[in-house]
């Protein structure tokens, strides 16, 4: 019984451990944005969308499941490799690290009110105020 309970519990936990993450932009953003572009934006290598709009990348706070998943699946680098990369840009005046926002709700609010904003949230948090451009 205990084993069965553990299996059932683990099944219940699994979906949240592999929760889908959605990359979101402002609904007014009509640029064609692919995964490569998202990666470059979050590494400070691309500062504008194809339509010329200046990008405002926003991160979920460190340690959140969505950030870990985004780092792994989209950026393809560890949190340390990413912060080393940003240290180089920040301390030579060549970039400003994306701002961290506290919650999915705050991210959605900020993205919905800034045309150039781009971020990611747990897919379950998405509302009609933002546009989903990728899911993973």
């Amino acid at each position, binding site marked *: 019984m205990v084993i069965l309970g553990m299996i059932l519990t683990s099944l219940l936990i699994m979906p949240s451990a592999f929760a889908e993450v959605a990359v979101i932009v402002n609904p007014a953003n009509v640029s064609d944005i692919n995964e*490569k572009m998202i*990666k*470059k934006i979050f590494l400070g*290598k*691309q*500062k504008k969308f194809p339509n010329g709009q200046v990008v405002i990348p926003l991160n979920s706070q*460190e340690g959140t499941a969505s950030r870990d998943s985004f780092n792994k699946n989209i950026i*393809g*680098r*560890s*949190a*340390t*490799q*990413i*912060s*080393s*990369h940003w*240290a*180089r840009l*920040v*301390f*030579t*005046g060549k970039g*400003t690290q994306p701002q961290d926002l506290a919650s999915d709700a705050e991210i959605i609010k900020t993205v919905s009110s800034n045309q150039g904003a781009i971020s990611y949230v747990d897919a379950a948090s998405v509302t009609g105020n933002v546009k989903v451009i990728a899911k993973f």
Partner: protein
Amino acid sequence: MKYIKLICLALLGMSLLPTASAEIRFNGFGSVVMGQTLTHQAPFTADFYDVGQYSDKPSFKPETVFALQATADVSADMKFTGQYLTKGTDEFETELDWYYLTYSGVEDWTFMAGRRNIPMYYYSEFSEVGFAYPWIRPPANLYWWQITQFNGVHASYEFEIGDLGNTITAFYGNEYSINNKEMLFYDRLFGGTATSIDEVWTDIIGFNYALVGEIFDLRFVYFQNDRNRTTYNADGTTTEMVPFDQTFMGFGGNINLDMITILFDMNLVIYDNDVELEYPTWLVSVVYNMDKYQPFVVYSQADETHDNDPLGTNRWEQHFTAGVGVRYNLSSSAALKVQYDYFEDQGDVDNGYNYHGDSETIAVALDFIF
């Protein structure tokens, strides 16, 4: 150029006024490094510019550094950046090491004016930010110059070609290093009695071209400048060096494959002087990216050759450093590193160009950012 410093400070002061809607961001970095040579043969120079040398007694002084950076928005398009730095080699005296204004009001352009590191080698601009690279230091036998900073202006233009990001930066500046620490050190090493030496690099003019792709980051640099030096002798006289032009070229970068990162830099410095001196230098490093561990190997070679060689030897100053180590990432803002370096001086013995001497060095570092 001290006027630029004053203007920068005035603007910073203005932006700090309570009525101004300035936002000030503080960031910082630091490295606590302890090391020592394993042999009794020669000291190991870990920092040529500030003469940070390890002996066979463990020491924190040669490489320990702390920095605090403040960035203030002067206006919507202009910001001021100042970096306070304190180093063990300077007895932990704090100085405003970098200060510059950045203007980004014209689309695709960035203009900077103030004091910064000269963008010489690939790692020159962030050579003190230990957290930003895998090793304890960029190979010291390449980063050996008596001048590393300048007061100047930069204009950068960014554009994209397909998936590739391109940045071209033109720069111009001057550096008057009064009482240069490294030059005085070498004067003493060769038995000189100078009281001080001024090292002057003027009309430093050149450009960088950076090409950034998904998995690589490449940079080409070219600049030239006039070199001059005044030595103040113990008897009150001065000696002026015969001035000459210097040309610097470099190609470096990194390639990020999944588990492996390859870092490299190739450079050539040419003196337009009577012996037509050339310094070809290069480094290559391979880093293996495991979860928290990043073991690495690094090799750097520096040579000195002369087209018009009065000594009849093709080996004047010549040395290599072979290093092996590991970076352990404690968190996304702190890393612990251990590195072993073997330095071999291959300089011409008969003419006294092996003055660095061979050494083996072990060092441990804690690098952090905030």
